[in-house]
């Protein structure tokens, strides 16, 4: 018995002593640590896919962005029911928003999240041992997308912090430094430099493998850069770059305007850049994009409704009106009848998804709806605008009328620069109706106060949106506010 007891004591001590310290070294279960992971072409692509993914996010592309880029304009009203403010969409509609309002912060957060993902990719990709051409293309995609996010920010807020690298959050000194708003010229320079890199490294649309359909292309970068130069009023460069897209022969206008925003028009001949989505049976799409704009009482929440002003802007016989606006009682192309008594008189048809004639798996939160960011028609209109500003009237008319002729409208013939400018601006409005450029166009064109003043717009205050108060607070005051807020 004594032996048994001794054995037990020893056993007990052994049990107590046998636990080694490395017992606590538990590798993360089911989670990948970064070291050495991004070493193959597939995995390197994953880094870039994750940047694209930011485009699908609710806060990046949907409610807040729709609020800021569209509801603010004279093309759209808040919509929904009178009492449903959509957090602050009523304030965006009548220009009473303040620095604490939600949408500004979401746009800020979402775009910087995209920038951070791009910076992350750009910090890793140069060291990945893959084919150089592919590597440059991936870097180019990351830079293109970073430029896209910065373009949203600079148009919305003006001067913003310029972040080009992965930042260590524990380094207080660095944090303070990067929190300072960079002049918008610096931001534009970064955008231009990124897009130039993208332009040179991205494949032409026809060079991509079919499986890569949806990635940004050389044409995307050129078209986008021409748009950036248009905002900067660098007409020569805007003219040159839009010209390069036109010359490339990679793009042309789709025959049927009405089909552009349907599933059948996905990645159509005029598509330079659109957010990809798939409606099922396994779906992945832009979160809530269709449902927030769906006919209220029938399909969705009914925000961002086309205005009377937009309805009236279409020339008689312009089919783009019917392709852009849903009216109560309409019978749509797929046979769906719109209810006769929704709370709003118009809804955004470009956000309509057919539950019967398109891929629809019952989930309207992430639908099949591709969101068109840059279309060939806009490149033509940029070209027209730049050419007109440069005095190349006939080229301007050629590009403008190509857009008009597609929808069966007669040629514009005026050669007066000012009149033509207005014609081009008008064409932009109706061609790109409800596509989220109208407000920024009005500011860019310097006539926001004139057009939007009756809606509450104050100049110069409302040319820019307020820096989110939350971000100013977090920065400890390093971030400064825009004038008037």
């Amino acid at each position, binding site marked *: 018995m004594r032996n*048994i*007891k001794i054995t*037990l004591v020893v056993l*007990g001590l052994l*049990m*107590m002593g046998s*636990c080694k*310290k490395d017992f*606590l*070294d*538990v590798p*993360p*279960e089911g989670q990948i*640590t*970064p070291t050495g992971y991004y070493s193959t072409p*597939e*995995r390197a692509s*994953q880094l870039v*896919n*994750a*940047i694209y*993914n930011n485009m*699908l996010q609710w806060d990046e592309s949907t409610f807040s962005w729709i609020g800021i880029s569209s509801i603010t304009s004279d093309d759209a009203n808040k919509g929904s*029911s*009178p*009492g449903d*403010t959509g*957090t602050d969409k009523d*304030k965006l509609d009548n220009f009473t928003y*303040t620095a*604490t309002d939600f949408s500004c912060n979401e746009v*800020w957060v979402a775009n*910087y*999240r995209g*920038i951070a993902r791009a910076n992350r990719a750009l910090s890793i990709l140069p060291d990945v041992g893959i084919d150089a051409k592919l590597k440059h293309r991936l870097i180019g995609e990351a830079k293109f997308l970073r430029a896209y996010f910065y373009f949203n920010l600079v148009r919305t807020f003006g001067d913003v*912090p310029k972040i080009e690298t992965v*930042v260590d*959050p524990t380094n207080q000194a660095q944090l303070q430094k*990067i929190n300072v708003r960079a002049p918008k010229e610096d931001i534009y320079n970064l955008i231009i430099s990124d897009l130039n890199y993208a332009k040179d490294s991205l494949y032409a649309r026809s060079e991509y493998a079919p*499986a890569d*359909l949806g990635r940004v292309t050389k044409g995307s970068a050129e078209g986008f850069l021409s748009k950036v130069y248009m905002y900067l009023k660098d007409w020569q460069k805007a003219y040159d770059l839009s010209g390069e897209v036109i010359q490339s022969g990679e793009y042309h206008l789709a025959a049927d305007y009405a089909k552009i925003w349907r599933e059948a028009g996905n990645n159509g001949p005029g598509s330079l850049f659109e957010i*990809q*989505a*798939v409606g099922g*049976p*396994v779906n992945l*799409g832009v979160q809530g994009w269709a449902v927030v704009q769906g006919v209220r*009482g*029938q399909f969705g929440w009914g925000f961002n409704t086309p205005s009377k002003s937009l309805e009236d802007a279409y020339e008689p016989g312009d089919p783009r009106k019917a392709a852009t606006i849903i009216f109560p009682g309409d019978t749509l192309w797929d046979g769906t009848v719109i*209810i006769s008594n*929704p*709370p709003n008189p118009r809804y955004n048809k470009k956000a309509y998804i057919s*539950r019967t004639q398109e891929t*629809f*798996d*019952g989930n309207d939160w992430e639908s099949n709806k591709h969101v068109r960011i840059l279309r060939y028609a806009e490149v033509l209109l940029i070209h027209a605008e730049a050419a007109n500003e440069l005095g190349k009237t006939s080229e301007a008319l050629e590009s403008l009328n190509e857009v008009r002729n597609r929808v069966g409208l007669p040629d514009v013939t005026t050669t007066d620069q000012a009149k033509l400018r207005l014609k081009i601006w008008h064409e932009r409005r109706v061609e790109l109706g409800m596509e989220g450029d109208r407000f920024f166009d009005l500011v860019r064109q310097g006539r926001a106060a004139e057009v939007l003043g009756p809606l509450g717009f104050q100049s110069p205050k409302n040319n820019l949106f307020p820096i989110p*108060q*939350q*971000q100013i607070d*977090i920065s400890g005051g390093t971030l400064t506010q825009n004038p008037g807020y």
Partner: protein
Amino acid sequence: MNYRITSRWFNRIHHRKGLIASKLTAILFLLNIFTLSANTYSQETYLTIQMKNASIQQVLDEISNQSEYTFAWSSKFVDLSKKVNIEVQHKPINRVLDALFSKEGVQYKIIDRKVVLSPAAGKVMKSQQKRKVIQGTVRSSDGGTLPGVNVYIKETKQGTTTDLNGHYSIRVQKGSTLVFSYIGMQTIEVVVGNQSTINVVLKSNVAQLKDVVVIGYGTAKKHDFTGSVSSIQGDKLTEISAVSPVANLQGKVSGVQIISNGLPGSAPMVLVRGVGSIQAGINPLYVVDGVITDDIRNLNPDDIVSIDVLKDASSQAIYGARGSNGVIMITTKSGHAGKLKVNYSGYTGFNTIASRVKMAGSKLYEEYTNEALQYDHKQPAFPTIDATYNTDWLSEITRPGRVMQHTVTMSGGSKDIVYFISLGYYNEQGILKKNNYRRISLKIKNEYYLAKFLKFGNNINLSSYHSDNPNTGYFNEAYRQAPNFPVKDDQGNWGWSNNINNVGNPVASLEYWNNQGKGYRGLGSFWLEAKIIKGLTFRSNFGLDIAVNHNLNYSPYFIASPTQQNLISNLSVSNNDEFHYTWDNYFTYDRSFKGVHNLKIVAGITIEQFQTSYLSGYRQDVPPQENYWYLNLGNAASATNGNGGDKWRRMSYFSRVSYNYKGKYLFTGTLRREGSSRFGIDNRWGVFPAFGLGWRISEENFLKSSDVVSNLKLRGSWGIVGNDNISTNAFLYTINTGINYVLNQNIVVGSTITDIKDPNLKWETSNSYDIGLDFGFLNNKLSGSVDYYNKQTKNLLFPLPLPAILGSASYITNVARMENKGFEFNVNWSQKVNDNFSYSVGGNFTFNQNKVLDLANGLPINGGSLNNGQYTTRTAVGEPVGSFYVYKTNGIYQNQDDINNSAHFPGAKPGDLIYVDTNGDGILNDDDRVFAGSYQPKFYFGFNFSAKYKQFDFLVTAFGNLGNKVYNGKKAQRWGGENIEASLSDYWTTDNPSNTTPRASNSVPIASDYYIESGDFLRINNLTIGYSIPVKSKAISKFRIYLSAQNPVTFKKFSGFNPELPGGVLNSGIELNPIPTTAKYLFGVNLNL
């Protein structure tokens, strides 16, 4: 002194055993089936005692330690301090007692597990000549006779004991006082007059039984313990029949706040001494028979014998890593050597809604809606007021639900094994239709005596549950939906609001919702305990907590209305499994030196691993029949799946030293060094020290003989405990996968690093102290305790807001500090008025103050979203966590001039609430919000009253709180066209210039103090009346029936459904989804064979 003990068993088990034994013994005696069980135990127990120069008292203690015997005597006539030598090897108890008392003039009787000592007959008789003979019978309150009761003359200390029939006879002078005493019973004194017969009834003295508390890795005598522990014994627990053992604690323990929504299968929110953390969980740790876990919904409340809540740092520190939110020690029932005992307990009854909010009828609804539309320049939705239908949606989705519970237990044992088996069945239908929960539980707890020094045990709790979980959001739909249309129209089509609002038809919602959960859980342990040398025990305990859960959600194809439809059926299923083990190895050294130095040391090591994984799948086009709800029957092209896992480990060294001198001066020191894999290698280990001091003033000479003070103990403790309850890889940069995109209509994989991590993450630590006084007066008729505590938690894990330019809104790091301090007060009065009537009144009161002391960059955190863009709470320095932070209102605008002359929101109209420009800057914005109270009460309390009259027993318990606020979120969350509460009928119009109820409006209300209401309430949560049927049959020892009402009455100021509003740390106290209080009405039976 030199004595040797060879089989001193299991301190921890022993005390509990002694407790049960006394109670069972009492019950058996009461029902006069003594002959069935007498001597059964003694024949099976063998003792080995070798002690030299030890007092009789020490020898008796030793016998108690080795066996389940308890002793009854009067020190007035048995001298236990006498030193003796004794040496017996493996002898039955009567041989031991013979050896001990043969020369001492003491006789003994063994009655089951009780040994009654009395003076030898000759001695007594000699001094009792020439007096009158008094005789009589001693009974328990249940009418059973009590054998072995000490009966003695107070003045002379001479006495006798009752015989097997409870009968006694004693010679005594007139005018003397006879004292009747019996362990576990209240002592009674009777003055002898002219009578020759004195019959007495003794009442059980519950207070004396609660002498042991379960603490980590052992037990302590309550008198000797320096920490703050609240204990609830089994009989108090089973008085209330509830699905969860924790719910039974509600209102019973000071310092413990339990907030429950009462839905079947839901886990309540449990706060021990306030909110202890922000990010790392606030629920306490549960330890079930030594096995740590975080969910005890699997346990059958009937299987639990006691719950001890460790409230102060000195008692929590032994669980260093996870003690900071309090530790709830659960001890389940065990078997005892002896004949097979079979018990049944069960009840059946129904659930019903305890209180409602009166909603507007169709007429008021339509008038209000029209009026609201008019302000927005809209046509009236109801040109003619039509009150044809008046649907009460809440009634349509609810029902009286059936509730039942049955438990059968069997226990017994021999000298080699004791066993306890319990089979339980619980079935509850919630008040919401389709909400069901049922559980089958099986408990097997055995102890095997492998050798004299070696014992093995297993304790296995198996359970399976099945639940139907309707979306409780349908309560919200019922609250909001317009009353003016039917559930279904005459053609059988679902009614709908025809676009007047966005709310679904709640009955249709419920009809098409299918969410089922089922699962299996095994919680238990296997252990080995060995006596190494005298006083030293080794115990190895391997605890397991294994769970498998399966969840299914099926949405059928349906079109209820144009706005309520699902065009493609879909099925989601998920399985998850958990495997959690703990392995404790520790030594316990327990010795008393010279009878005055009492030392107990526990030291050991424990390791722990938790591993879990899940697998989920989804497909569309699954047919609607329930037997087809399998993924394989759906569209394979729509399939998606998910799979993930988690794993962490802990390892700790722990020790505790308890010392007391003569039971007067008490010291406890605890040290735990704990490592957790949840932190990086440099921050992995934490050291958690604690100590406690106590002084039992009542043991001092100046109080020892006091008739007034029976117990008085001053105690104080200090300690540091930790909390590591955060996600496993919070310190480590990992790649986030599944950040996918679409190319060529195919989903392509995306991955990147999205989260910012703090590699220097370390323990949350709470530094706290506690000062307490335990008291008992008048033979413990009046007993209680008072505590002051102060707990400062630092390095709180907190999502520190980051500049969004870094790409992540926040990261988890140790930045916040918080404080909880307060008073606790417990008091209980028990009195036996006469033979037929006794009662007990008790109460507990807690004052707690929670305050955030520091947030790293001082930035407050907003919370309490109303899901309509409005937030309601703010966590900021100097305020309680989750305080309401809203606009202040001051009446109602009566005209446009008032609006124009004050700061107002755009679009303000006469009839709107006036929001106060509190900072006077002329504009209304977030800076004008004010703190307006918190969901955390300043004061909470519980009361209980119980009484017994003859065969009847009666119990009422109540609890409540004062000083907290609740937010009537459901009322403040309106999108328009929804129903209103009937109380809004007085809404403002130009003809009715109300200053309290705003105009009709479809706008989202601003978050303001208009919706803040007092959270004060008092709830009677149990009202039970029972009757013990006298049964002559020897086969039945107890047969009690009872009627019980739970939550029958709530006194509240809140105008909503339920002032108990559990939620997240930052979001509690908001009635957004109005779940009514459930009241239960039950009929139950307790039957012991």
